[in-house]
């Protein structure tokens, strides 16, 4: 029973460690990337989670809530789809980039068109290495031509920060910074919570005089919420309408309390993973890595149109090659018959003989009651409706390529 083979979250891996005890037969703590509990960090909401009966597990170097009390993952997932949930995402890295040449700098570090982005709007983007592989995925919010707010993944903190430092030094020492240097400030200790679900706007509206109907998906604003002036971005990681709210360190717990009363339920990492997968969103480390270009990952849309021609960003050569020649493999969605296919499951052509890809994330979908998965398959097998075979426990199971998102998003667009 202990061989929890294919877990998409380090959090879930911890479940296995808890189950396994000394003298236990099959203990394989596969690919456990999390340091021991002594080194684990806590977000500003740690005590709040414990108070609310959270099961805390290591995730991306932090102790984070997997679930709360007796609420199971499916019930918690459904509550976000039907009502609203609050997530602590304070482990993620929040940064400010400022300076007269910051737009050009970020257009070098990412392939996004940021000069044409309107103030107080956001875009999903990618930070690329020299070969065009994805160092991290990120959401970039423009406040002004000289000020951007950037959120990156906790699990990539060290890699990202070293990369930014390196590239900033190079930029600021070069001619390109002659109109002014770029500064990077990490908002360490700041809180970040995500209020997600169809009831979230109604709930938040009761706490602010700002008319939330005016705040569209992908936009942000500083809102007065019960006297706190907070950065609120409309969007999230569930496919539902929702808000990501950044909070100064001193007020994080108080704001979390305000945002988690009935009918909002605190929601852990377990439901976060199943919600994001239904929404077709990537988890870095599972579905994205440094060997994968944004073209392979189905993220071509994050690359600005004119930037595909100019190619003046880090990693452009690899990206443009995949654009011109077509990528060798592509990220796709699968629906699998019978058993759920998890991360690492091998994908074969319909004859079952030729290996054509690998599953990167997979779950039984609580919303659809089907086994859904994200995978990479060889170009040629990537069209929707293609039938393939997936190996689960040495048995081939039929699967069909299915467009993502699996569950239709319900963003607020006015």
């Amino acid at each position, binding site marked *: *029973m*202990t*061989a*929890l*083979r*294919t*877990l998409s*979250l380090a959090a*879930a891996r911890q*479940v*296995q460690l*808890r*189950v396994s*005890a*000394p*003298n*236990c*037969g*099959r203990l394989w703590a596969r690919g456990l990337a999390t340091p021991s509990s002594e080194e684990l960090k806590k977000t500003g909401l740690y005590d709040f989670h414990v108070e609310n009966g959270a099961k805390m597990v290591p995730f991306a170097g932090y102790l984070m809530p997997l*679930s709360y009390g007796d609420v*199971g*993952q*499916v*019930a918690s*997932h459904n509550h976000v789809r039907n009502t609203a949930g609050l997530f602590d995402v304070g482990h993620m890295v929040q940064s400010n980039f400022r300076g007269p040449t910051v737009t050009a700098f970020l257009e070098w570090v990412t392939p996004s068109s940021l000069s044409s982005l309107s103030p107080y709007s956001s875009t999903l983007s990618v930070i690329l290495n020299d070969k065009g592989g994805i160092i991290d995925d990120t959401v970039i919010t423009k406040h002004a031509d000289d000020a951007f707010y950037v959120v990156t993944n906790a699990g990539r903190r060290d890699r990202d920060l070293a990369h930014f430092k390196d590239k900033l030094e190079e930029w600021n020492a070069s001619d390109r910074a002659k109109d002014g240097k770029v500064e990077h400030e990490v908002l360490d200790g700041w809180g970040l919570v995500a209020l997600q679900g169809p009831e979230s706007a109604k709930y938040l509206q009761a706490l602010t005089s700002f008319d939330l109907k005016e705040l569209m998906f992908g936009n942000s604003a500083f809102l007065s919420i019960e006297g706190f002036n907070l950065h609120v971005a409309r969007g999230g990681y569930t496919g539902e309408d929702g808000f990501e709210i950044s909070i100064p360190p001193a007020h994080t717990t108080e704001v979390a309390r305000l945002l988690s009363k009935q009918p909002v339920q605190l929601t852990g990492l*377990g439901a976060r*993973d*199943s919600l994001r997968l239904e929404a077709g969103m990537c988890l870095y480390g599972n579905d994205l890595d440094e060997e994968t270009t944004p073209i392979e990952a189905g993220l071509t849309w994050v690359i600005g149109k004119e930037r595909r021609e100019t190619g003046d960003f880090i990693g452009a050569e690899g990206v443009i090659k995949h654009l011109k020649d077509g990528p060798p493999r592509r990220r796709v969605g699968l629906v699998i018959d019978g*058993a*759920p296919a*998890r991360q690492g499951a091998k994908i074969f052509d319909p004859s079952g003989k030729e290996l054509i890809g690998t599953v990167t994330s997979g*779950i*039984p979908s*609580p919303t659809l009651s089907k*086994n859904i998965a994200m995978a990479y398959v060889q170009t040629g097998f990537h069209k929707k409706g293609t039938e393939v075979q997936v190996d689960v*426990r040495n048995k081939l199971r039929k699967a069909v390529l299915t467009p993502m998102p699996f569950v239709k998003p319900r963003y607020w667009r006015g």
Partner: protein
Amino acid sequence: MFSVLRQTSRSRLSLPRRAAVPAGIQSIPIFRTLITKRFTADHETVSYDDKTGLGTITITEYAQSSLGDVVFVELPALETKVEQGDQIGAVESVKAASDIYAPVSGIVKEVNEKLNDQPGLLNKSPEEDGWLCKIQLSNPAEVEDLMTAKAYRDIQDS
């Protein structure tokens, strides 16, 4: 048999009543039938009925609570010959897949078909109604080498 009986009295004495882990051995007061319940490090149980020679396989209460909502159970085919330690199926929750291993050698005689439609039985009643399969033991001595309830509880507490 004698050692089983000895084990019975010993574990009865040493086991405080605890809801989470049922007593290791239950003797059912009809004739001479004795049901020996043992645990494995893979968080499974086998209840061996010495009259029928069948061992009923389940996952433990601890395993179900760690897995969370079970949504799919894969069971072995009837008449499959299994060796102790063979993978015979799997239990899947939203968050994880977990293999089921044969705790004893023998032939699969029955599977719990109810789990196909009601995988949630594994959460509600993992060690009773949510049983997985019944194996005709080829070597009943294997049962005695498995863990008693107390030994199983000890590895969880340690």
